[in-house]
């Protein structure tokens, strides 16, 4: 399909991007284009102005910042998966990102684009939730920071305003004692998650001291499986205990029914996949 006509501007800084966004009532940021361009081609959106941030140097790259790593919003999925910093301090992100689409898409699509797009079936918002990430956002009034838990609002909706740009994502390192795992369920390798589970577990003396579990595609937006997390806290790091705790995985979720799965099947997948993700994160299998 062919998009409707639009104006195009390529900017060199986040500030210029914000300025450009303010010149139009109906402007869109273009990151890697892997979600936006299909939307334009299907004419599901017909913005007036496209502001291309893919050349903004300050939004690209991965650096260490004390007890966190900071990933520029424009960093491609490929660069994330191959980064030693990410592999060392946020292996969950490396693992989840490697499951995104195919190599072509991963060479173009960006971490920030995936976060800003907030597709409930996307693989990266769940990781941001588990990592207690912080989003750095530039807008007309300057820069603000938003915790991941407050960032994702609804289906394809975040706290980003029309004239704001996501600049970077800060992921606190998960230190010693933490294990993580991303368990993704799809029908073919390059497709979106039907359901997926991101898990991080800190073990102490054979039991689970702390657990964080986020669900992909179990609601209009990603969410933490709070009931599972509290059931796991202090539980034995055993297969039985994990399986029992995982039975609460679908609590508080509102999965959709579509061609790939009806809601009740998604709920079952959430329970099964949570059990598997947590067990692997806890080093059990």
């Amino acid at each position, binding site marked *: 399909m062919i998009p409707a006509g639009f104006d195009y501007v390529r900017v060199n800084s986040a500030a210029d991007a914000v300025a450009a966004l303010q010149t139009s009532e109906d402007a869109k940021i273009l990151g890697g284009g892997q979600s936006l361009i299909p939307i334009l081609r299907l004419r599901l959106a017909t913005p007036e102005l496209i502001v291309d941030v893919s050349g903004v140097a300050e939004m690209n790259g991965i650096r260490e910042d004390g007890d966190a790593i900071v990933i520029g919003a424009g960093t491609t999925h490929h660069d994330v998966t191959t980064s030693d910093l990410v592999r060392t301090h946020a292996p969950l992100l490396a693992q989840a990102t490697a499951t995104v689409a*195919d190599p072509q898409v991963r060479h173009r699509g960006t971490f920030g684009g995936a976060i800003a797009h907030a597709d409930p079936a996307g693989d990266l918002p769940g990781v941001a939730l588990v990592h207690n990430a912080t989003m750095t956002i530039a807008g007309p009034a300057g820069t603000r920071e938003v915790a991941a838990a407050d960032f994702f609002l609804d289906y394809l909706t975040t706290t980003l305003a029309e004239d704001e740009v996501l600049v970077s994502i800060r992921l606190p390192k998960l230190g010693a004692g933490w294990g993580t795992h991303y368990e993704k369920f799809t029908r073919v390798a390059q497709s979106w998650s039907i359901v997926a589970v991101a898990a991080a577990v800190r073990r102490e003396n054979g039991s689970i001291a702390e657990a964080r579990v986020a669900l992909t595609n179990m609601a209009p937006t990603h969410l933490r499986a709070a009931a599972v997390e509290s059931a796991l806290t202090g539980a034995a790091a055993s297969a039985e205990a994990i399986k029992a705790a995982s039975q609460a995985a679908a609590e508080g979720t509102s999965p959709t029914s579509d061609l790939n799965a009806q809601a009740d099947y998604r709920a079952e997948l959430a329970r099964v996949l949570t059990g598997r993700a947590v067990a692997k994160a806890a080093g059990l299998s």
Partner: protein
Amino acid sequence: MTVTDKEYETAFGQPLRRKEDAHLITGQTRWVDNLSAPGMLYAAYLRSPMAHAKIRVNTEAAKSYPGVVAVYSAEDFGAAQAVIPDAWTVHPDMKKPVMTPLATDEVRYAGEPIAVVVAETRYQATDALEAIEVDYDPLPAVIDLEAAIGDDSPLVHSSIGTNTCFYIESPGEAYAAAKAQAEADGGVVITRRFLQQRLLPTPMEPRAVLVVPTIDDLTVYASTQIPHVLRLLLAMLTGHPEHKLRVVAPDVGGGFGGKINCLAEEIIGVHLAKRLGRPVKWTETRSENFLQMHHGRAQIQDIELAATREGKLLGLKVDLIADLGAGLRLFTAGVPMFGAAMFNAIYKMDAYQFNCRTVFTTMTPTDAYRGAGRPEATFAIERMMDELAAELGMDPIEVRKKNWIEHHEFPYTTISGSIYDSGNYEAATERAVELFGYDELKAEQKARRERGDRMQLGIGVSTFTEACGLAPSRVMGQLGVGAGGWERAEIRVTLTGKIQVVSGSTPHGQGHWTAWSQLVSDKLGVPFEDVELLAGDTATGPQGMDTYGSRSLVVGGSAIVKACDKVIEKAKRIAAHTLEANPDDLEFAAGVFTVKGSPGPQMAFVEVAAAAQLAHNIPDGMEPSLNSAYTFDPINLSYPHGTHLCCVEIDTETGFTSIYRYACVDDVGTVVNPMIVEGQIHGGLVQGIAQALFEEAVYDEAGNLITGTLVDYLLPSAADVPSFLTDRTETPSTDNPIGAKGVGEAGCIASTPAVVNAIVDALRPYGVNDVRMPCTPERVWRAIQGGQSQSGSVAKGGAQ
């Protein structure tokens, strides 16, 4: 790769690398969309967003859009617009509702073209579509096949007063007797309902057409499998004289049957170029392709099989309801009938009854898709054979052995009247069982069952045959096909002894360049590199019946061999003349003529080529040319066969199903290039597995295609299938000079039932005896939960 250690003397039979790949890989391909012509315009089509509606079209506003040259709807053409052609009169009383390229007054499927914009750029043409006003007065969608048959169903074509295109019933006495015998003697009667879901052919290259007019000639560049048939049809439909119409199929990026039609956009393209006097191009988007390229499969199959307690088949009864979609395309009505003779497959039985009802619906028309009728038939019978084995507690291979035609019984006339020329089901099966590790996998399956493993195994069998080499013109005539089945080849020999092969059969990915070069190299003793292919252009190769039904090598290749024989005959006369010998005393081998029993004088083919065209000294009255043509019309179809064994692994907690091991031994007759054969098998396997596990075109109740993009219509990639274990047996066909049987569809036909049989086998302990295709994780999971048969699921779309 199954290269044997045989020493090759010629290029024949060697796994030579494909000549065509270099330009494909380096991007030097001539897709229609890469071509342009001076002054070229672009067309874009407005397509119906509704399944069924009365329409009133107003194109005025679009005409003033930037760059727009013309906007037309049906009323601008009137009767001159012509109609969408069909070419298979299956039954004298069949209903043939008329449909026009641009819908006239009524649309009958989502995606049907309504109007066309021609503009200076593709973007301008697309933008102006939004200014065309269409009033849609909705009519009811007809989506459910069984409901469509009912007296109170809304009609797709009110003019014909019914949704049934034709109903064919064959005599039922013999089957009734077989069934009675089974019941009386303590045998078994098994009934199942199988659903062949709608599939989208999805070639890599969507369709495109560029029509270039000159003073009174027209050249049509089309991404088509059938340049020759297309020329004939366009001439007949538009009234443009056939000899002034040239059709070129340049590089064509796949078809799978999807490019076997005469498109609305091709007919309109001719009108546009003639009216506007400028070249006009149209290239389809993937979304358009999904709506407008014909779909495949789409049948409900009610099957009943009667057998003795010992597993000997007594009879088979088939009741089909085939979904034709909104109207007839070239071979739409014939597809289910092409399968009619294949349900009995490789088995001997006393009774066979075949009834078929074909039904119009408000969905995209269906037509040939890789296998066309044969995959559906093969699926049904091979599923039934595994069901029979399960019912009797027998091994599924043993049940087949009891019933198949044994190798010494060929040629064999089947219950449906086909004559199978040759085959060896025992040999292929024996090799497949060994390659697969059948006993070892059975043992592993048992062990996993016993320990209640979360990951369960299932093993499925498919011993298939199919009818290939679509030909016998006479047979096609008897079946009501509006075409012959011959194929033509011409061998041109240049003065320097290089060969141009003019082939009627046109490649769209198969490897004709390579295989044809091997054939000619073998026959004439010239180097493989010295052979060039001219195909896909009616100017260089005016006659041909084109490429479908695994016919290229069997029919077209045979024409090449026969044409080479004529070249050799001519060359022999010249060589004999030069060598002062009697032509009958000459021998020709490895490109050299020698006198029998004499080590002395000899003459190479290249020298003869030069002598022929210098013509300084050739026999009196002889043409100074070695060029020869042959049109081959075989006496029979060919019947490749094979044994496919699939082991699936099912995650019983999620229903996720993966292929654990897949082994197949195919017998496609004599092989010219084993690497190309293997490639065809691999591609076919993936496509057949895709029907079993992934693909389905789903419509909602309102008649919208809800799997409208590749996000929802799931195609597997290399990551989703295992490495296949393949081997071959070679039982040559006796009905063509090569001995070839055809391989283009084999993998796709054989694999689907092997996979579903394996899934059902894995789930039998849960009380399951069928899972509807595609066997999605959710369907498998529900089967495990529910335990009961999945047979009889509804035919209509819907997200279940």
